[in-house]
């Protein structure tokens, strides 16, 4: 179990290899990487800034990760979430799970990103193509996705 909140980019290959290094009972590693899209709600997005709540962020990510370990037989997991200014195509977040069984790895990974989306204190401000910034609205679809795991 490991959580990082950082401004720097990350190398997915290095992160996944570190999760499984020396462990030979892992059958599969599932990962999800979230990227900055150039379009959101129909307006062109130049870049965005991710604000967060230092202290609470780490705490919530650790809670979410611990909950995944309670629910699924995981051998390892990893969460990295960036903050600060990010441009289209940049990596925002990595969630990854390693389990003896692939279904557990998939479900736990999907759970991590769904819960993170509604429980980790991050806020996105988009720079609009026409100038100015806009706080991104929470999406109802994210609440529904998270509620599936209640």
């Amino acid at each position, binding site marked *: 179990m490991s959580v990082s909140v950082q401004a720097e980019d990350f190398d997915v290959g290095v992160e996944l290899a570190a999760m499984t290094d020396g462990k030979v009972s892992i059958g599969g590693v599932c990962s999800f990487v*979230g990227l900055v899209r150039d379009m959101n709600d129909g307006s062109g997005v130049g870049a965005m800034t*991710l*604000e*967060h*709540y230092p*202290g*609470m962020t780490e*705490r919530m990510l650790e809670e979410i990760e611990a909950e995944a370990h309670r629910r699924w037989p995981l051998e390892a997991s990893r969460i990295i*979430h960036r903050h600060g200014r990010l441009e289209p195509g940049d990596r*925002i*977040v990595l969630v990854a799970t390693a389990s003896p069984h692939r279904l557990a790895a998939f479900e736990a990974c999907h759970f991590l*990103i769904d819960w*993170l*989306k*509604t*429980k*980790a*204190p*991050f*806020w*996105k*401000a988009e720079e609009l193509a026409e100038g100015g910034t806009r*706080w*991104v*609205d*929470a*999406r109802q679809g*994210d609440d529904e996705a998270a509620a599936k795991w209640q």
Partner: protein
Amino acid sequence: MKVLYFAWLRQRIGTGEETLDLPEGISNAGELMDWLKSKGPGYEQAFQNADAVKIAVNQTFGSRETPVATNDEVAFFPPVTGG
């Protein structure tokens, strides 16, 4: 008491953090929010739609009913949009 604001609440209020003495007669986060709303136009604008404001007390999600005390860290922010 430390009070934190994030995202558009921070922008409307004009600060991300302030230290206050717990006002008399206030025992939960909802009462604190109502009291803050009367502090000025920025606060009023930030808290005008109370349903859109999330609350954390000591870095744990709470509600209007969550008790607050002198040494607590209370945060107000919009629904989260990370990931």
